């Protein structure tokens, strides 16, 4: 909402600077986004809380002037010479403004034209360049005539984009007055909160300002008599559903003639962001901006024609099935059955509260104007606005709720303004159908509630005093304030809700920043553990320590993107997804099911950037639940590694590419940190992974997920580097469920260990896990560590054999082991390896 300062001053005295005013409005909830200055000086100094833009007019060089005669240019048809008086002297000024051509060669004008005149050296915007380009007026010869000054358009003065002709000021503009003094202004761009639609008008802002500053509000006064024949009997109104249309008021203006509105009206409309049309339409828009009540003007004679010469009947009703209406913007609209229409006996005239129909619209020829001011159910209007995708100033206001009391006031005010600017005679009376009068809520607010919720101690009288500033009608009895909402707002509720609404108003007027801050005095609620979060965070830390970077990806994807993580043909056609009804982009249509697919995309994105890539993400996937509307959201961990095992240095070349065992080592390190016991990697098959390099990760009895080297056929779906990609996707809940509630540590040994190496020859396909298990079982408690340090294959061993070399540590907690004891264990280990696995000691 754009509010010109000059207009605001019609209703309230303002002695604040621009900055102070912007701050006062903002701190009351009318947030000022920017201030556009029109001719006035911009605030000085470096620091401004608000954004300012605009052009200051030099008071000496930009003034009101009058053109006394328009003369033809001797050498150019499209230029004229103006005999102009700037209050100090008379001069001849050259201009090409088309709106001066009409006056060419008429001799001295009986009524001088008042204009905005910029003298030599004045800074204005260049009217011939797009946007706002500053220029300084200099002396020049144009077609043999000297030119050094200019009669200005709105664009040149930074008022609007208008550059069709020069500004014709109103006749009462005082010649010679600095233009900034005559019509300097500032436009406040204000964001209106959804519950403050009552302030979406100049009067609404003034009203709020009156409440904040304590200055009196000057409501517009009736000036013109309504002495024409009464409107009663000239039109009747039928409201079919008062819930949808609580009030419908009409008034009549006879003998009007549309003409350009006074310049100050046009300027205000433009500053507020609307286009001036003619004095009739402008009056409806002006009063809407002024009061917040949208109005609609019908051509009464046309309606009477439709009613076959009889007084027309206005009917408001829901649209019929299949009903259509062509609106003012020329669009034929299919109407929804919930949409309310304004009709006559012949059919629809306009979409109630949103936009008029093309056919019944006032035209510049209309003489008898039927003016509608109505109130509509805001939820219903909102549905229509959304369904028709039709944004209008009226729809914006009505869809947020306009108090029915405004309808009558605005119709009266508009008739007066219309008559003042268009001529004509206002018909006496109004036809007012008000079948569902609003009862403004009465709310009881004990002062103790102010203390309980806001934490400030105010007497009931003080509370009432604050509310009265906002025009609440208050009575005080003991501790209790009984307040009735003023007849211009619909945002105050009943009962406890109404109390909260009043508390907000009390806080706002008291000033949020005057309420003392205190530290929470309520006792600390019972504290609770959050094992899932704690576990996830431990897992994150463990993986970071293992050298992985955490990533966080979009949770929206497409089935096609996720299918890249599978070989062609492995995709199940009917994978259920949580699908978006209104995806914003074709590459974000569903909620992800696979975290791995997201992390692989991160590897792809970075594949050319770093020689070593190691990523993980912990986050939910979304699995539709056939039994319930809401999906399951299990948390997954996905890892992906690719490239060099360590980072190269100037004396250390790049390492080998990471392989399965790097992935496994990282997982093991992380699992160790979580004290997960009984973790096993079992060979398995999974379509995403290399069939020989893929493991099922089992923790105890539960399957946590899979880990392996990506299948080459999957890898080729991505733009990866040459190195293999190792990846895993694990269920975090399974991992965390296996974290022991507590664990015990081993005492630090006091006695020295006996170290020994053995190498055994076994069949190639014997898993290492089994050998180690036999060694540990045979070694018993005194064998404290078993570490594989070498695998050897070679001709000497024979086909299908491998030698596995282990380093064994023997240790007793209570004594130094003797060589004989160590030898005994060793022999038992060798014997059992032979018996159980056919493993032979390698000599």
């Amino acid at each position, binding site marked *: 909402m754009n509010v010109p300062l000059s207009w605001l001053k019609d209703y309230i005295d303002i002695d604040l600077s621009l900055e102070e005013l912007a701050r006062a409005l903002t701190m009351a909830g009318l947030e000022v986004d920017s201030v556009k200055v029109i001719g006035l000086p911009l605030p000085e100094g470096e620091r401004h*809380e*608000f954004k300012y833009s605009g052009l200051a007019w030099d008071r000496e060089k930009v003034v009101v002037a009058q053109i006394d005669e328009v003369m033809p240019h001797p050498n150019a048809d499209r230029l004229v010479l103006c005999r102009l008086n700037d209050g100090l002297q008379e001069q001849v000024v050259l201009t090409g403004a088309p709106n001066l051509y009409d006056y060419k060669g008429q001799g001295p004008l009986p009524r001088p034209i008042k204009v905005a005149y910029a003298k030599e050296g004045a800074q204005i915007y260049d009217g011939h360049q797009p946007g706002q380009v500053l220029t300084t007026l200099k002396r020049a010869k144009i077609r043999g005539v000297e030119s050094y000054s200019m009669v200005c358009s709105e664009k040149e003065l930074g008022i609007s984009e208008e550059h069709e002709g020069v500004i014709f000021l109103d006749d009462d503009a005082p010649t010679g007055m600095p233009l900034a003094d005559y019509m300097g202004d500032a436009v406040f761009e204000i964001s209106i909160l959804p519950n403050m639609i009552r302030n979406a008008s100049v009067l609404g802002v003034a009203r709020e300002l009156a409440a904040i500053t304590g200055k009196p509000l000057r409501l517009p006064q009736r000036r013109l008599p309504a002495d024409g024949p009464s409107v009663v009997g000239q039109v009747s109104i039928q409201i079919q559903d008062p819930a949808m249309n609580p009030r419908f008021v009409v008034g009549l203006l006879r003998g009007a003639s549309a003409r350009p509105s006074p310049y100050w009206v046009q300027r205000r409309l433009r500053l507020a962001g609307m286009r001036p049309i003619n004095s009739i339409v402008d009056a409806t828009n002006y009063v809407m901006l002024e009061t917040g009540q949208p109005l609609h003007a019908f051509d009464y004679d046309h309606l009477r024609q439709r009613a076959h010469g009889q007084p027309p009947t206005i009917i408001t009703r829901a649209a019929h099935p299949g009903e259509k209406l062509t609106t003012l913007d020329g669009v034929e609209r299919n109407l929804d059955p919930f949409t309310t229409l304004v009709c006559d006996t012949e059919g629809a005239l306009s979409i109630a509260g949103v936009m008029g129909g093309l056919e019944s619209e006032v035209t510049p020829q209309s003489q008898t104007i039927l003016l509608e001011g109505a109130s509509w159910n805001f939820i219903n209007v909102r549905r229509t606005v959304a369904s028709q995708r039709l944004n209008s100033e009226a729809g914006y206001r009505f869809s947020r709720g306009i108090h029915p009391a405004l309808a009558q006031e605005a119709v009266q005010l508009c008739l007066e303004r219309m008559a003042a600017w268009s001529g004509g005679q206002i018909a006496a009376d109004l036809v007012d159908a008000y079948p569902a009068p609003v009862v403004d809520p009465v709310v009881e607010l004990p002062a103790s509630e102010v203390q309980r919720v806001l934490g400030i101690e105010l007497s009931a009288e003080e509370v009432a005093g604050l509310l009265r500033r906002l025009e609440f009608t208050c009575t005080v009895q003991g501790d209790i304030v009984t307040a009735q909402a003023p007849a211009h707002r619909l945002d105050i509720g009943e009962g406890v809700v109404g109390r909260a609404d009043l508390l907000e108003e009390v806080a706002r007027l008291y000033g949020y920043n005057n309420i*003392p801050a205190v530290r929470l005095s*309520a006792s600390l609620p019972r504290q609770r553990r959050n094992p899932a979060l704690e576990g996830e965070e431990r897992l994150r830390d463990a993986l970071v320590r293992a050298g992985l970077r955490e990533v966080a990806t979009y949770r929206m994807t497409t089935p096609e993107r996720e299918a890249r993580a599978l070989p062609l043909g492995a995709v199940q056609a009917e994978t259920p997804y949580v699908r978006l009804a209104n995806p*914003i982009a074709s590459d974000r249509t569903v909620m992800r099911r696979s975290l791995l697919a997201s992390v692989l995309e991160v590897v792809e994105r970075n594949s050319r950037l770093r020689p070593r890539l190691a990523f993980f993400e912990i986050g939910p996937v979304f699995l539709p639940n056939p039994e319930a*509307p809401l999906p399951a959201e299990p948390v997954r961990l996905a890892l992906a590694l690719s490239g060099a095992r360590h980072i190269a240095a100037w004396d250390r070349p790049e390492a080998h590419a990471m392989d399965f065992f790097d992935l496994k080592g990282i997982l093991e390190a992380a699992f160790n940190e979580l004290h997960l016991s009984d973790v096993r990697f079992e060979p398995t098959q999974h379509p995403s992974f290399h069939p020989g390099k893929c493991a099922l990760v089992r923790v105890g009895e539960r399957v946590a997920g899979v880990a392996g080297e990506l299948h080459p056929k999957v890898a080729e779906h991505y733009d990866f580097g040459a190195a293999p990609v190792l990846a895993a996707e694990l269920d975090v809940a399974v991992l965390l469920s296996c974290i022991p509630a507590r664990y015990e540590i081993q005492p630090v040994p006091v006695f020295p260990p006996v170290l020994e190496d053995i190498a055994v020859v076994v069949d190639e396909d014997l898993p290492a896990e089994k050998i180690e298990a036999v060694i540990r079982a045979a070694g018993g408690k005194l064998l404290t560590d078993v570490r594989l340090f070498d695998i050897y294959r070679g001709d000497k061993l024979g086909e299908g054999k491998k030698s596995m070399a282990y380093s064994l540590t023997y240790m007793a907690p209570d004594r130094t082991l003797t060589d004989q004891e160590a030898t005994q264990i060793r022999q038992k280990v060798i014997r059992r390896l032979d018996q159980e696995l056919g493993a032979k000691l390698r000599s």
Partner: protein
Amino acid sequence: MTDLPILLQNLTSIQEQALAELESVQDEAGLQAWRTAHLGRSSAVMRVFSDLGKLSKEERPQVGQNANQVKLALEGAFNLRSDELRQAALQRSLQNERLDVTLPGRAPTLGSLHPATQNLREIYRVLGDMGFQVYRARDVESDEYNFELLNIPAHHPARDMWDTFHTLTPGVLLRTHTSPGQIHAMREYAPDPVRVILPGMCYRYEQISARSEIQFNQVEMLAIDKGITFGDLKGTLNDFARRLFGDEVRTRLRPSYFPFTEPSAEMDVECFVCGGKGCPICKGSGWLEILGCGMVHPTVLKNGGYDPAVYSGFAAGMGPERIAMLRYRITDIRYFWGNDVRFLEQF
């Protein structure tokens, strides 16, 4: 009979000769060779010991004593010389082994937490110190929890504040804020007091640009109890702002509107870049908009299972990514989910 004086004389010359040779030893190898030659098993002095048996009972003590003195003297001299040489060698190596300390170090393979996680943790820590505990809720939510129960009925104009992603299941949407967690937490804990942090990913139907994202984290705090006031809200937020932005930072509240709180406010903190003097980060205003907050609306309290005539509470919500953008001068919000290592490595 042996000639005792000659034997003793020999010992003296063994010592003199060995000491003389030791003088000319210059390195570790020479030192070891000298030790083998003069203190080894077959050295002259050790031979004297092994030949002691051949001497008479009377001669043995004196020869043995003398030989021992020679051995001790040689050992002492050896240790001395050994020390001297070691010191000299150390000196030489200290002189010679000079690095170019300006060469780059070898990088360890470190991991890192995503900046969003780092931000969330920082907020958890600060709020955790004030007794707020994390309570998480789902991403895919019902219209009822995301809107209805939060005092945002269908077709209410307040719904315009959230551009919503809907799913194909009617009444199921992607949460537009973490506030549904308010209802979940209240319904779980009522009538106990509540002091929770509600974090999580939220979604808005907005064109992705440098300034706006379709998904973003939000963190809310919610406190419900008897006697919680707007003053408590201010005090808590001030403490929070000081912990996050500096002990001296100033804050202010501006009236605002959220359907689930009343009174509602936006909190600004004094720009931590310029200290309030005005800079490009705060667009010259000296203030940064950090969070929205307010007293929990009576309808929401009721929907959560608390009697609004007895209980009161406050809620406040912020966007950690937005705060991170201000703090680290991140110019493009898309960096967060873009996961370019050149971004991630900087945290």
